[in-house]
């Protein structure tokens, strides 16, 4: 419906909304523009268009090593978080056990708590378990923290699932194992892909937990973080622009899949708000 507002106020509101949009997007635009600026990350106006920073970036082997590390950690975290998240979602949906309410909250804690607390707790754990800090500990942190995301996503998927299909399968003589592989899992396919994309995006971007668990090999965000301390060049703008483009692509496909799997309306994002922690 239209506005409980007079025309004058309504155009004022439209201008204000445009201002907020500008506030949200301006920094990103600046970042992208200056990645093509020959003379560095600052100054105004940007002069001398160049692709040099991109060619420098493509020749920068330590960046690409860190990208590879990030991909390995994200890939492994997807497998771990999806497996355990799927089981946890099934348990929350179908089983009852003592401490279920506590478990539900505990799984979600890494989403709600500041990353530093989860990161440090795992650091102490690693110390007492004699785990040397490495990409393994980073994977342990990401995988464990992101079980929360997988659980929320897959639990939502399970709630939409038609139990009658599973009942039919069991009645017709399929074993629970067959039913799981042939009915439950295929029905959850879209939720699984959507959760996987989300876990990938979050893991690729994670800093706060990673910060305390990293060993000698850097992930991409920590490699960038390290460089920020040594003085900045538009090469970082270039890599940020690429990260922006890739996350944009992933998020658009995530949203697309999620709408297909849940028939989501705008606003249903907010159910998932707890999912987005900046780390």
């Amino acid at each position: 419906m239209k506005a409980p507002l007079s025309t004058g106020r309504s155009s004022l509101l439209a201008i204000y909304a445009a201002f907020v949009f500008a506030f949200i997007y301006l920094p990103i635009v600046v970042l992208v523009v200056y990645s093509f600026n020959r003379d560095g990350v600052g100054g105004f106006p940007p002069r001398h268009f160049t692709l040099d920073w991109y060619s420098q970036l493509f020749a920068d082997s330590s960046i690409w090593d860190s990208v590879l590390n990030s991909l390995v950690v994200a890939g492994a975290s997807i497998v771990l978080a999806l497996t355990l998240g799927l089981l946890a979602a099934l348990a929350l949906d179908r089983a009852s056990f003592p401490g279920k309410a506590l478990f539900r909250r505990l799984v979600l804690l890494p989403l709600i708590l500041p990353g530093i607390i989860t990161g440090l707790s795992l650091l102490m754990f690693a110390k007492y378990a004699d785990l040397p800090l490495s990409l393994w500990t980073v994977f342990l942190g990401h995988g464990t923290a992101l079980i929360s995301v997988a659980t929320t996503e897959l639990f939502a998927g399970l709630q939409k699932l038609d139990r009658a299909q599973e009942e039919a399968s069991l009645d017709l003589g399929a074993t629970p194992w067959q039913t799981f592989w042939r009915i439950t899992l295929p029905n959850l396919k879209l939720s699984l892909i959507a959760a996987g994309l989300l876990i990938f995006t979050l893991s690729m971007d994670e800093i706060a937990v990673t910060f305390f668990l990293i060993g000698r090999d850097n992930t991409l965000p920590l490699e960038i973080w390290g460089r920020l301390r040594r003085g900045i060049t538009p090469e970082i703008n270039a890599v940020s622009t690429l990260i922006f483009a890739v996350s944009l692509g992933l998020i658009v496909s995530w949203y697309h899949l999620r709408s297909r799997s849940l028939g989501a309306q705008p606003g249903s994002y907010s159910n998932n708000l707890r999912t987005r922690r900046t780390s």
Partner: protein
Amino acid sequence: MYSRTYKSLVSIPPLLWVGVFLLLPYTLMFAHSLWAVRDGVMVHQWNWDNYKTLFSNPLYAEVLLRTMRIAGSVTVCSLLLGYPLAYYLAFQVGARKELQYQLVVVPLWVSYLVRGYAWKTILGSDGVLNGFLQYLHLTHEPVGFFLYSPFAVVLMLTHIYTPFVFLPIYAALEHIPRPLIEASQDLGASSWQTFWRVILPLSMPGLLAGATFAFVLSLGDFLAPLLVGGPSGTMIANVVQSLFGAAFDWPLGAAISVGILVITISLLFLSEFLEKQWAFK
């Protein structure tokens, strides 16, 4: 319809994993807060001294207060930006609402580091903003106080959390039954009265949820102060970080972490309770 075996098979692995890799580490954090460091070595002597230090040394209260001020400013600024935007999208936009909604939401998922870094290049003394001001001849020398100040931290975090605050408010506004608004108008309320007495109270749960998230997430942030805050923008989580690093006092750092954890969880419970109070019945 599910057998006992099925139920145990699905519940035991995640329970074990979460028990070992989440519950145990969080418990370890609490245990550390009750230990001590003597002569540079951590000893497992149970005591409350770390908590006493926190309450007796005014330094910690000061940093916590500053952190709360920063988190509070971020919350207020995000609400001031996010609420009108949500109102605009919920009530004013006719065409292309879906697209505009997506435009607000997408940055939510774009790298925290990328957005923080963008502000660093804008606010620096030879940054884009200073270049722009000099280009317009508004200033003649670089202005130094944009970057490395609490202001920069508030700006960066507001930028990051505005879409966060927007989401639940927008959802709440969308769920207000439109006949209520029409009724208010038909019964002669001005648009201002309709806003204060119908729309705002009904959107309160969304507003509270958004505000809690912005506050809680800013409260525990240690990256923004490192990136754009400088010494005057140091927040409580930075103190924790240095206690775990150079200062090597894990027990005291753990005690502060437990403090942050307690504040965070109480705020979440409080907000959950208040949201229920305001919920549309």
